[in-house]
């Protein structure tokens, strides 16, 4: 059998027993991983010529530059992340491996589980819609972090995950599964950080909100600016359930997240929000799917970004209303501010509607800072750099206000401010025209 061999990602490596941690049948686990690694290289390499990866730098992906993390890292050095008071659980994941779980005993008694989960490699990804990267995740991901909330339990304190990547040369495949049983409520905040250098992060988050459950998952991405991230997030919501997916992206050389949200039960809702800010040579890439499979479902997507210097952003999104989706409301808005001539943004919203009794809207803009807004502030005595800063911060305000907690909103606002401060310093030093 010929296997296109990338030594780091070969079937032999995938079969490495150290990865089989948690598996009851080690041989079966090794065989499964081997098969996934083989399958990965039977698929075409992801390519910017395909619709799924268009506009981005995916053709520059060189898997040979990375080595998968096959064992749990020992003594990782982690950067500080904003402290979140009174978390129900705090988890640390390093290079895909769970290195610590601190779960409040009271919550255990009430029915919250935060633990290493099913190592079988099963996921909710659509088997007909997986690519090489998904297959590599299947082959190389350690056992997932499993968060399960018992029926009707409201976890009114956040579960905090610090997902760290050690940086240069490492490929990591973190995997988080969140399941909120009927009428349960939970908020998960994932903070992504990395060491320096060009590493590859391939995170997968799966979410399931059963009937009437409320599930919120917020990712704050602060990877090193040399990092590549090829992430996926897949979620489903049952009848009357509500999902909130928030992504605040600031780091990465190329940071991409594909989000698949399936409103599967009648009256389910999904609030999909993102704040992103790319500068230098960064590229942020979002691909979203809003599937309305059931009647009277509601989705509201608002992605707002800023690109500066030579940085770019890509938004491609599809609202899909299934023929059973009558009475659905679907909204999709992507707005981008371009702060420099050389910055760029692609924004491509799409609709596919198979039922006439629906309300859908999509809007998309890419523009510099509004000249009239700027003039108004200048005319009232606000200096240009300060005016632009106020306008950009103001631009993000409505979406930040939709993030779940005031503390989290403050964190995201602070990260936007950090980017704006950098810009202000650059302008003061005369680096920007």
């Amino acid at each position, binding site marked *: 059998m010929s296997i296109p061999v990338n030594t780091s990602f070969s079937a032999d490596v995938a079969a490495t027993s150290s990865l089989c941690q948690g598996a009851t049948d080690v041989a079966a686990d090794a065989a499964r991983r081997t098969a996934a690694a083989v399958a990965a290289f039977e698929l075409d390499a992801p390519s910017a010529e395909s619709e799924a990866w268009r506009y981005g730098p995916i053709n520059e992906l060189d898997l040979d530059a990375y080595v998968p993390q096959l064992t749990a890292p020992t003594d990782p050095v982690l950067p500080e992340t904003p402290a979140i008071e009174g978390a129900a659980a705090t988890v640390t994941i390093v290079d895909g491996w769970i290195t610590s779980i601190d779960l409040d005993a009271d919550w255990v008694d009430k029915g919250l589980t935060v633990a290493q989960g099913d190592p079988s490699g099963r996921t909710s990804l659509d088997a007909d819609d997986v690519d090489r990267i998904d297959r590599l995740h299947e082959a190389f991901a350690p056992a997932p972090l499993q968060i399960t909330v018992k029926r009707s339990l409201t976890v009114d304190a956040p579960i905090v995950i610090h997902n760290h990547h050690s940086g240069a040369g490492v490929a990591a495949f973190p995997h988080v599964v969140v399941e909120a049983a009927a009428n349960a409520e939970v908020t998960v905040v994932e903070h992504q950080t990395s060491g320096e250098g060009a590493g590859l992060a391939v995170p997968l988050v799966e979410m399931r909100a059963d009937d009437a459950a409320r599930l919120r998952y917020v990712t704050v991405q602060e990877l090193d600016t040399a990092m590549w991230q090829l992430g996926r997030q897949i979620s489903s919501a049952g009848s009357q359930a509500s999902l909130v997916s928030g992504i605040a992206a600031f780091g990465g050389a190329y940071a991409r997240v594909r989000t698949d949200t399936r409103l599967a039960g009648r009256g389910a809702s999904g609030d999909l929000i993102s704040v992103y800010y790319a500068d230098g040579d960064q590229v942020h890439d979002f691909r979203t799917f809003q599937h309305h499979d059931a009647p009277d479902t509601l989705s509201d997507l608002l992605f707002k970004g800023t690109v500066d210097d030579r940085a770019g952003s890509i938004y491609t999104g599809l609202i899909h209303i299934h023929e059973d989706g009558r009475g659905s409301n679907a909204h999709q808005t992507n707005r981008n501010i371009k702060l420099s001539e050389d910055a760029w943004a692609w924004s491509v919203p799409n609709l596919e509607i198979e039922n006439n009794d629906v309300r859908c809207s999509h809007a998309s803009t890419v523009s510099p800072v509004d000249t009239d807004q700027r003039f*108004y502030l200048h*005319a009232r005595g*606000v200096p240009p750099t300060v005016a632009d800063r106020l306008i950009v911060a103001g631009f993000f305000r409505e979406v930040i206000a939709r993030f779940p907690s005031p503390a989290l909103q403050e964190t995201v606002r602070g990260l936007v401010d950090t980017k704006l401060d950098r810009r202000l310093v650059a302008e003061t030093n005369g680096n920007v025209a």
Partner: protein
Amino acid sequence: MSELIIEGLEASAAGNPILRGLDLTIRSGEVHAVMGPNGAGKSTLSHVLLGKPGYEVTGGTVTLDGEDLLAMPTWQRAHAGIFLGMQYPTEVPGVSLQEMLGASFDAADKDTAALDEALLVEAARIGFDEKFLSRALNVDLSGGEKKRNETLQLGVLQPKIAILDELDSGLDVDALRMVSQRVEAATEETGLGVLVITHYNRLLTELKPDHVHVLAKGQIVASGDAALAAELEDTGYGAYGEVEAAVAEPATPFASGVLDVFE
């Protein structure tokens, strides 16, 4: 005593000459009204005095107390003491009045501690709902509320000279009276000099001008007292050579969020 002196001002937009040698002097405490037909260059005058992008000054001078206003960027003109009350105040999503004026105070090294108090006092004086102070600037405000907001800022910033471009549009009679009284009070309290730009006489029945000028084809073609305004109300601008066609304002290319996916 402050003095805004405009001499021989010429300006064009998109290559079209609009102001063609305009002379006007405004001193502290005076209220001047510039009236004229559509397209005469009234709004252009207000924009050029504040340095709005899209206009080119091709001749003449503008000084405020001897300082060359045209040499300054817009924000410094504001600190020099010029205020423009805009005809169409711009909506600025996510930025509050408090934040904007706070940044302006900071830039002038003024005490921002006094700002909140000043905002409340000024809001009360013109019947501006306090809830708008912390909301996004001009967003979801009615036309009248926007004009009150402009007047409130005039009160807080205490400029030397205020240019009020079509201040009356959108205001009902009561609001017009309150706003006019506030401006008039400023001429006495802080010696504000006022340049009112208006098409109709309506505002001038409340805010009494000392001098009325007719602007036509980019020049002041007649000056007089309040009686001139009343006369214009009756006769219209026909006598001053109503211009053939209104000159378009320069386009602001990205004003309304252009779908521009191919950048």
